[in-house]
C-alpha cells in the first residue's frame, strides 16, 4: 500500500469528517444530560399496555399545569419521563397520580439530580479531561524523549496530539447529530468514553511512530527517502494495528448488540472513537509527519 502517494485522499477524508463534526457541534450543540445540568429521569412501567405517552403527560400536567415534562415510550408499557429537578414530595405526588390513573406502576429507575451537583460534576469532568491530556502529553514526551534525527521529537508529539483531536472530534460530532436526531444527551459516561478513546488513540499512534523512528535509525546514511521509510513502517505495523483494534471492536460490538441498553451510547462512543483512532494512527498521523518534514 502506498500511503504517501495517496496521502491527500486519506487526509482529505479526515479533514472533511472533522470539519463536519465541528460544524455539527457548533450548529446543533450538545445536549447536557441530567447529571451535568440537574434534572430528573424516571423510568416506569405499567402492567396495563394501553397507556400512551400523551396520557401520561396530561396526567402529570393535571397535578402541575405548566410542568416541563418529556415522556418517551421505551417499550410496551414502559416509559422514560424527564422532568426538572423535582423533590421527593413531588415524586411521591406524581407517582400516586399515575398509579391512581393507570394502575400499579413499577419504578425501574428514578434519579433526580440537583443543579449544584450537576455543575460540580461538570467541573470535575473538565479537570479529568485536562488531567488526561496532560498525562498523555507527558507520556508522549517520555516515549519520544530520545532525540531523533532527522525528525525532531516534538514533531512526533504534536502529530500524535493532532490525531488525538481528530479521534475525539468525530464521536463528539456524532453525538451532536444523535442529540439533534434522537435527543441523546451528553452525560458523564460520554466524557469517560472520550477519555478512554484518548488513551487508545495515543497508543496506536505511538506504535506506528516507534517503528518509523526505528527504521530511520537503521537506514541512516542509506539512499532511501522519508516517504519510503514511512510507507515501509506503516506496512510493517499495519496487521498488528488493525488486529489489536479489531479484537477491541469485537467486544465492543458484542456489548452494543447484546449488552444492557443503558451502556449503548457509552459503548458506541468508544467504538466510533476506536475505529477512527485506528484510521488516524495509520492514515493521518504519519502523512502529517511527512508533510511537515517536507516543508521544513
Amino acid at each position: 500500500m502506498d500511503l504517501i502517494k495517496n496521502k491527500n485522499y486519506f487526509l482529505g477524508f479526515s479533514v472533511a469528517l472533522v470539519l463536519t463534526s465541528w460544524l455539527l457541534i457548533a450548529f446543533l450543540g450538545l445536549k447536557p444530560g441530567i447529571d451535568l445540568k440537574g434534572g430528573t429521569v424516571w423510568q416506569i412501567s405499567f402492567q396495563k399496555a394501553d397507556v400512551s405517552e400523551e396520557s401520561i403527560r396530561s396526567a402529570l400536567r393535571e397535578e402541575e399545569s405548566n410542568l416541563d415534562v418529556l415522556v418517551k415510550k421505551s417499550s410496551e408499557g414502559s416509559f422514560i419521563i424527564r422532568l426538572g429537578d423535582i423533590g421527593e414530595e413531588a415524586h411521591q405526588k406524581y407517582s400516586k397520580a399515575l398509579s391512581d390513573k393507570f394502575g400499579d406502576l413499577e419504578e425501574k429507575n428514578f434519579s433526580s439530580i440537583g443543579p449544584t451537583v450537576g455543575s460540580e460534576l461538570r467541573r470535575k469532568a473538565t479537570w479529568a479531561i485536562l488531567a488526561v491530556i496532560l498525562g498523555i502529553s507527558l507520556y508522549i514526551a517520555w516515549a519520544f524523549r530520545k532525540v531523533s534525527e532527522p525528525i525532531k521529537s516534538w514533531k512526533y508529539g504534536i502529530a500524535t496530539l493532532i490525531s488525538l483531536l481528530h479521534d475525539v472530534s468525530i464521536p463528539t460530532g456524532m453525538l451532536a447529530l444523535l442529540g439533534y436526531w434522537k435527543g441523546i444527551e451528553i452525560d458523564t459516561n460520554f466524557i469517560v468514553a472520550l477519555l478512554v478513546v484518548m488513551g487508545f488513540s495515543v497508543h496506536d499512534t505511538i506504535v506506528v511512530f516507534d517503528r518509523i523512528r526505528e527504521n530511520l535509525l537503521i537506514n541512516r546514511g542509506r539512499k532511501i527517502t522519508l516517504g519510503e521509510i514511512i510507507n515501509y513502517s506503516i506496512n510493517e505495523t499495519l496487521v498488528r494495528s488493525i488486529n489489536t483494534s479489531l479484537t477491541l471492536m469485537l467486544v465492543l460490538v458484542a456489548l452494543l448488540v447484546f449488552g444492557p441498553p443503558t451502556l449503548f451510547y457509552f459503548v458506541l462512543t468508544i467504538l466510533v472513537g476506536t475505529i477512527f483512532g485506528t484510521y488516524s494512527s495509520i492514515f493521518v498521523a504519519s502523512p502529517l509527519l511527512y508533510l511537515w518534514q517536507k516543508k521544513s
Partner: protein
Amino acid sequence: MNRPRLVFILMLLVVVAIVAGIFSYEPFWKKISAFRPWSLGLDLAGGSFLTYDVDLSQVSALDRDSVVKGLRDVIEKRVNLFGVSEPRVYEERAGEKTRLVVELAGIKDVSQAIREIGATPFLDFREVPENATNTEQFIKTSLNGRYVKGAQISFDSVTRKPQVNIEFNDEGAKIFENLTAKNVDKPLAIFLDEDLIEMPTVREKIGGGKAQITGAFTLDSAKQLVERFNAGALPAPITLVNQQTISADFGKDSLAKAILAGAIGTLVIIIFMMIYYRVFGIFASVALLMYIALALAVFKIFPITMTLAGIAGFILSIGMAVDANILVFERTKEEKRKGFYLGTAIEEGFKRAWPSIRDSNISTLITSAVLYYLTSGFVRGFALTLFIGVVISMFSAITISRTLLRVFMKGKEVVAK
C-alpha cells in the same frame, strides 16, 4: 529453563486459574465460591442512592471532621433501624461542599427511608436579642443536637403534660452552662428542625448539662422525639440533593445482558485468534480464558464492588488482553521471516514486543488512574476494573502464553529440525 520445570510452572498456572474460575463462578462449587460472595453495586443489585448536602456553616473548621463522622454514624444507625442489609454511608467532598451518600440495597420503600432519615431531628439553641421582632433575628449558638448524649420522656408534676429531658455530653454541658450564664433573665429559644418550639426564660446558670423541653407535646410526639434523639440527633442539618433508585429486576437484567455480551465477545475473539493465528491462536485463547478467571477472582477476593460500568471496563480489558499476544505473534512472524528457527523467533518475538506492549498499555493506565482519582461513583468502578484488568492482562499475556509456547512449541521444533 528445562522442560520439566516449565511443565511444572504451567501446571501450577493452570491449577491456579481453575481454582480462580471455580471461585468466581458461583453456581459451580458452592463450598469454594461461597466463602466470599460477589459484591454487587446498587445498579446491579437494585437499591437506592441518596445524596445529602451537609450544611456545615455553623460548625467551626476544626470540628468539621468529627461532625461529619458523627452525622455518618447517626444516619447509619437510623438506616439500620429499618432493616436494610449492609447500608453504606460515605462522605464525598466536592470542593467546599461536603456530601453524604447513603446506599440502601434491596429496599422496597425508598420514600419511607427518605422520610426516616430526614426526620432525624435537628435541635439547636438560639439567643434572643432584645427587641427582636421575629425569629429570623435570633442568633444561632454553637449548642445543638450533636452534643446530646441522651433523652428521656417525663411528665410535668402539675399539668401531667409530657416533656422531653435531654442530657448533654461534657462539652455540651459546658456550652450550655456558659450560654445560660450569659442569658440569665433573658429568653433562650429552642428550635427543632428550624421551627421554634419553645422560648423559656433562663432563671439562673444551669450546670450539669441537663435541659428540659416542655413545648406542646402529645405523648406520641414526645416519644418519637426521644426515640430519635437516642438514635442520634443530627449534628448538622442535611438536605437531599440527589436520589437514584434502581429496581432489582432492572439491575438483574442489566447484569445478565452484560455477562452475555462479555461471553459472546470473548468467544468471537477466540474464534478470530484461532482463524488468524492457528496454533498460536489456541495458546492465546487459553491464556485469555485464564486471564478472565484470574481477573474475576481478584475482583471477587478484594472485594471490588462490581457495577455495570465496572463490568464494561472489564469487558474492554478482555478486548485488550489479546493485544499483547498479537504484538508478540506479529513480531515472531517477522523474526521468522528473517530466517530464525521457530523457537528462537518466539523468544525474540517476546523480547522485542515487550516495549510496545508496555508502552501501549501505559496510556490506558494513565487514563484509568486519572478517572479513578478525579471522579466518584459509577465512573470509579469502571476505572478500577479497567486498571486492574490491564495490569493482570500484561502478566497473563506474557507469562502464561510464553510458558504455553515454550512447553508445546519447543518440542515441535526438535521434530521439525
